[in-house]
C-alpha cells in the first residue's frame, strides 16, 4: 500500500477515535433539590441545517397517565401514542408547533404523529383533563432529559460555539447560555420553578345529602 494511503487511513481512524467534548449539566431548584424532567439542548450557533429525524419514540397512555411526562425529540421525529388503558382517550394538542386531535382513541389503538416544527408541544386528553405530557421538538441532535439526579451528559460534541438551553414545564421561560467548547465542560443551573398546579386527578366526594 502506498505510504500516502496508509497515512490517510491512520489520520481518518485517529479522527474517528476522538470522542469529542462532553458537557455535563446539573440542575437544581431554588431549594437545592435536583430537577428531573428538564430538557437540556445544545444548538450550534448559526446552524441552518436541521438534524436528521430520530427513530420513532412512544408516549404510552397507561393508568390514565401519559408516560413519559416529558419527551425530547429532534425535528421530524414520529411519536407513537399506544393506548394501553381499558378506556378511550381523546388526545390532542393546541400548541403552535403541532396541532392535532385523535378522538375516539380506543384501547389498543396505536397511531403516530410526526413533529415537523421545533417548539414545545403540550399533549392532553379531552376526556381526562389531568392527563398532560410535553414534547420538546428540537432543531439539534444534541439534547437529553434529566433524570431523578437532575444531571445530563451531552457527549460527542464538536468544538465550536453553542447555545445551551434548559427547558422545564415549571420554568416560566427557558434559560440559555452561550458556550464555546474546546474541551469537556461542566455547567450548572439553579432554576426558579413555579409551583406545580397540575389539574388534580384525585376523586372528589359527592355533594352533601340534603
Amino acid at each position, binding site marked *: 500500500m502506498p505510504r500516502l494511503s496508509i497515512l490517510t487511513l491512520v489520520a481518518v481512524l485517529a479522527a474517528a477515535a476522538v470522542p469529542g467534548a462532553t458537557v455535563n449539566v446539573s440542575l437544581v431548584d431554588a431549594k437545592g433539590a435536583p430537577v428531573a424532567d428538564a430538557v437540556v439542548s445544545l444548538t450550534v450557533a448559526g446552524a441552518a441545517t436541521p438534524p436528521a429525524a430520530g427513530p420513532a419514540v412512544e408516549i404510552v397512555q397507561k393508568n390514565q397517565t401519559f408516560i413519559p411526562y416529558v419527551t425530547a425529540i429532534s425535528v421530524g421525529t414520529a411519536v407513537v401514542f399506544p393506548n394501553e388503558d381499558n378506556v378511550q382517550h381523546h388526545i*390532542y394538542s393546541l400548541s403552535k408547533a403541532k396541532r392535532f386531535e385523535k378522538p375516539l382513541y380506543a384501547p389498543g389503538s396505536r397511531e403516530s404523529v410526526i413533529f415537523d416544527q421545533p417548539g414545545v408541544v403540550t399533549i*392532553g386528553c379531552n376526556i381526562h383533563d389531568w392527563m398532560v405530557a410535553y414534547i420538546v421538538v428540537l432543531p439539534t441532535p444534541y439534547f437529553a432529559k434529566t433524570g431523578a439526579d437532575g444531571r445530563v451528559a451531552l457527549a460527542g460534541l464538536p468544538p465550536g460555539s453553542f447555545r445551551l438551553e434548559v427547558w422545564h414545564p415549571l420554568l416560566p421561560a427557558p434559560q440559555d447560555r452561550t458556550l464555546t467548547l474546546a474541551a469537556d465542560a461542566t455547567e450548572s443551573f439553579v432554576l426558579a420553578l413555579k409551583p406545580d398546579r397540575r389539574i*388534580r386527578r384525585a376523586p*372528589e*366526594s359527592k*355533594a*352533601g*345529602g*340534603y
Partner: protein
Amino acid sequence: MRLPRLVSGLGAALAVVGAVSAQEWRTAFSATWAENLSRTSFAPDRQNAAVYDGAVDAVWHRQLAPNWLAQLQGEAGFEQVPVFPGLDGIHLGARLDVRRKFGLGPFAPALDVWGQAARYDLHERDRSAWRVDGGLSLSQRLTETWRASVSGQWNEDYARGHIFDIVNRRISLETTWQALERIQLSAGASRLWGQLTANANEFVYYSALGGGFGPKVAHYYGTIPWAESTAFGDDWVAYRIDCRADLCWLGASIALGENTSLSPRYESARVVNRADVTYRSAFWSLSLVHRF
C-alpha cells in the same frame, strides 16, 4: 334488616356485571355529624346524630362522538344512624350522564345532562322509596386552579308511605379553588323549592294543629298530610311541607394520592315552609373516596 328480594337480586346482578366489565370502581365512606337530622322546627326537640354511609360504584364510560361522552354508573350503598336505627338503610341505583364539551382542553366549557334512579330501603319501611333524579350542569374552568359550575336538579321520591312522597327542584352554584398541590377548597350555595318531609314530637304537632303556634300555622298544618313515625321516637309524627330551602356549604378535598381523597365539609340548611316556620340544620362530614 330484611333485604327486599328485588334489591338483593339487582345487587347481585350489578356485582356480577360490574366485576366482569366495569372500567373503574369507586368506594366512598363518610361520617357526618348532623345537627337537627330530624328536621324539627321546635328547637328543644331537634335531634342530632352521627350518620355513617358508604357506597361502591362501578363505572363505564364511552365517547360517543368527538365531544360527547356518556358515563353509566351503578351504585350500591348503605346508611347507618346508630341512635335512630329506623333510618338505617341500603340503596341501589344507576345513573347515566351525557357530557357535551364545547371545544378541546381543560378550559372548554362542559354541559352535563344526567338522570338517575335508585331504590332506598330503610328500616322504617314507610320511608323506603324509589328516588328519581335528573339535572343538568354547566361547568367551566376559569384558570388552572379555579373552576365554577351552575346546575339545576329535579328530584322525585315515590315512597311506601305517602308522607314521604316528595317532589322538589333546586339550582346550585359552586366554585372550586385548588389552593395547594394537594388541597382543593370549594364553596357553594343552593336554593331548593318543593316538598320535604319534617318531623315533630306529637305534643308539639298537636299544639300546632290546635293553634298553639298561631292561626296561620294551624291552618297550614291542617291542610298537609302527616302520619305517625317512630324513626325519632315512639311519640313522633312525620309530615310533608311545601317549602323553600337555602343551602350553603364549604368543603376541602385533600388528595392523599392519585386515586384517594379525604374531604371535610360543612353544610348549612335553612328551610322555610308555607306558614313561615323555619327549620335549621347543619352537617359536618368527613368523607374518604378511593378510585380503583
